[in-house]
């Protein structure tokens, strides 16, 4: 990670936020749709669909069996109901499980061959698919930085940038369907090793029908020369997106990975059930950042994405380190607990989260820190913001196993309420099974303060600008953990997500 002058970054970022907010008229800016001919698998879910997806991806036999196994297990499972979420019944037979732009029937050799309509989609989203320097637009950042992108559109990956440059460093960054073809031994070794097929209802569903996603492999001792990122776009109607991401960091390697998500505005709900698995070996370090901006539904709670995601990192060997940073502003329903298994000794897990729920959004999100190794350390900083009629729950587990002696956790959960019809809930689970570990938990709940808003307004800011400023201040501890391109986007999102929440 580039070391930044913190203040300078904040300066640039905040200005950006305000400008972005001012330039935006609507609330959800990614709500448009790309009109393109799609190739759908038949509606509904059964073994034939699982076989079809596997066949479309030209998968080896073992993977088909793995999927079928997952599907059969899924049939015996029930949708979890312990979260503080009101989830309408989902008819899994009314969804499409595979959608691919027709122009992608022949896999393009490079991004140059991809249908310009698809490329335009990403250009419109502001995502660079050309191999160009990304100019950060931040004071103090003199040179541009490179970010490699994997673009996933509905069920398929369109292509990945900077492949050659990454390959020179020994880094593999491609879609998971390509990885199955080109690096089957790696996929076979690690797939499902962090999140088993039957881990939970949604993970089982994903294991059966995942169509694409990203694969990252960082060889021993390599510091990935650029940020890696995946942008997920759901476009087709009534289509679920089930991406699977697998990241393997060999001994002593480093990587920073970013993930962004958007979807068109629709008045029906759409399903998104992803799985992210991260394997981190000795002395390796992975930083995983998400800006989740799926369509949240309209101001009356109609439409929006159901976001049921299983993300887990396994710090499998000593001194492995993982850091999750998430900015969750979208989705009608969010069910997501990026977790850290601190298996090795002296391992480290961090979780920084901003979850914003406005209008009728529901979020139940948090983390699990499972301490298995000695001297393992974890840190949780969660900032929940509720507005409108939204309900926002932090749910977190900190577990110290008997062998995880001298381990430590620090948890800080802050909730901010805007208005008087929303709710904030904090549900910490703490299990300590040895005498030498230490767990700290701090929680606060506050309302956006009228005095703060008046102070800002008396200096000339309008109410929305004032709220954006105060809320961004509230989130600062988390925002500053994001890579800078994302920090700007996230700040703008924080402001936009809260539009209409006051007055």
């Amino acid at each position, binding site marked *: 990670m580039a070391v930044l002058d913190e203040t300078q970054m904040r300066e640039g970022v905040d200005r950006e936020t305000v400008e972005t907010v001012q330039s935006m008229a609507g609330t959800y800016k990614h709500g448009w749709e790309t009109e393109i001919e799609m190739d759908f698998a038949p509606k509904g879910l059964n073994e034939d669909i699982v076989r079809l997806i596997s066949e479309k991806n030209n998968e080896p036999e073992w993977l088909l069996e793995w999927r079928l196994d997952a599907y059969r297990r899924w049939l015996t499972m029930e949708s979890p109901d312990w979260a503080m979420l009101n989830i309408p019944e989902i008819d899994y037979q009314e969804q499409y499980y595979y959608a691919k732009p027709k122009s992608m029937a022949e896999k393009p050799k490079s991004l140059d061959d991809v249908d310009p309509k698809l490329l335009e989609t990403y250009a419109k989203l502001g995502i660079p698919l050309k191999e160009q320097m990304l100019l950060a637009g931040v004071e103090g950042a003199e040179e541009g930085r490179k970010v490699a992108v994997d673009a996933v559109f509905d069920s398929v990956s369109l292509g990945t940038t900077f492949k050659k440059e990454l390959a020179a460093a020994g880094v593999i960054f491609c879609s998971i369907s390509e990885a199955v073809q080109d690096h089957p031994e790696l996929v076979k070794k690690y797939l499902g090793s962090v999140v088993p097929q039957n881990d939970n209802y949604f993970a089982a569903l994903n294991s059966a029908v995942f169509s694409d996603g990203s694969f990252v492999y960082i060889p021993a001792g390599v510091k990935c020369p650029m940020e890696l990122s995946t942008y997920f776009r759901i476009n087709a109607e009534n289509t679920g997106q089930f991406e699977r991401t697998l990241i393997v960091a060999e001994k002593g390697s480093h990587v920073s990975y970013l993930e962004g998500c958007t979807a068109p505005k629709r008045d029906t709900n759409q399903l998104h059930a992803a799985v992210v698995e991260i394997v981190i070996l000795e002395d390796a370090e992975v930083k995983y950042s998400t800006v989740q901006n799926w369509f949240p539904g309209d101001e009356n709670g109609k439409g929006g994405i159901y976001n049921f995601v299983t993300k887990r990192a396994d710090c499998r060997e000593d001194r492995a380190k993982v850091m999750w940073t998430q900015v969750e502003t979208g989705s009608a329903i969010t069910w997501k607990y990026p977790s850290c298994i601190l298996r090795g000794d002296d391992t480290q897990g961090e979780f920084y989260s901003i979850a914003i729920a406005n209008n009728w959004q529901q979020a139940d999100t948090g983390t699990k820190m499972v301490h298995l190794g000695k001297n393992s350390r974890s840190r949780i900083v969660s900032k929940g913001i509720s507005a409108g009629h939204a309900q926002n729950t932090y749910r977190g587990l900190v577990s110290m196993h008997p062998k995880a002696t001298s381990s430590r956790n620090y948890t800080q959960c802050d909730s901010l309420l805007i208005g008087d019809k929303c709710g904030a809930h904090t549900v910490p689970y703490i299990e300590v099974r040895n005498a030498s570990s230490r767990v700290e938990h701090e929680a606060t709940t506050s309302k956006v303060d009228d005095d703060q808003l008046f102070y800002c307004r008396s*200096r*000339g800011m*309008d109410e929305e600008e004032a709220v954006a400023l*105060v809320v*961004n201040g509230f989130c600062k501890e988390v925002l500053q953990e994001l890579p800078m391109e994302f920090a700007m986007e996230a700040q703008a999102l924080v402001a936009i997500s809260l539009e209409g929440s006051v007055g």
Partner: protein
Amino acid sequence: MLEIKNLHAELEDDSEVKILKGLSLKVNPGEVHAIMGPNGSGKSTLSYVLSGRDGYTVTDGSATLEGVDLLEMEAEERAAAGLFLAFQYPVEIPGVGNMTFLRTAVNAQRKARGQEELSAGEFLKVVRAKAKDLQIDADMLKRPVNVGFSGGEKKRNEILQMAMLEPKMCILDETDSGLDVDAMKLVADGVNALRDAGRSFLVITHYQRLLDHIVPDVVHILSEGRIIKTGGPELALEVERNGYADLMAEAQA
């Protein structure tokens, strides 16, 4: 500049609590007026009603800035029109850098007035020069707005905001409270540096000592929501010597 006529205001939540009861005053361009008065006379309420804080209902009277009705405007519109209130208790905003706050404010006002926004570079240059005069160092500009600031730092920060926003009409609400002699001098110097023919001040204070440094053209005595006496700087000295009791008795007589 500022003209207040027969202003009546009460608490929004409790119309029984009438605070301003027919307050009138007129501040001409370039003038410094002081308002003195005992606790509970309505000094802070006057500053809040003028700057547009929620919680008060104006039941009668008017307040205009350069002939434009202030009371019809939102707080931010009043600010853009040139009104500034230096708070008695400046508010803390955790996580928001002082400099970010300042620039957001300056550009919001410039935008509202149809002016070009200041670039980061231009802004930095101006703010550094002005901060130096108020002995505000780089660290204080970086820290979150008013968080962990001492009483003196908070007040100096208010004056810095005033200097950056260049308002036409400045209201200082007990800016001297909580300041030691040196800090008061610094704040007063900051205010005096801003005095000019086009800018007016309304200085609200309990004590005469601030007026040794910021010498007013006119002094008003406020009691029970009305101006009971108006005079020159000597009126402040009289209050200092004799307190408010005589003046209040005189007014009732």
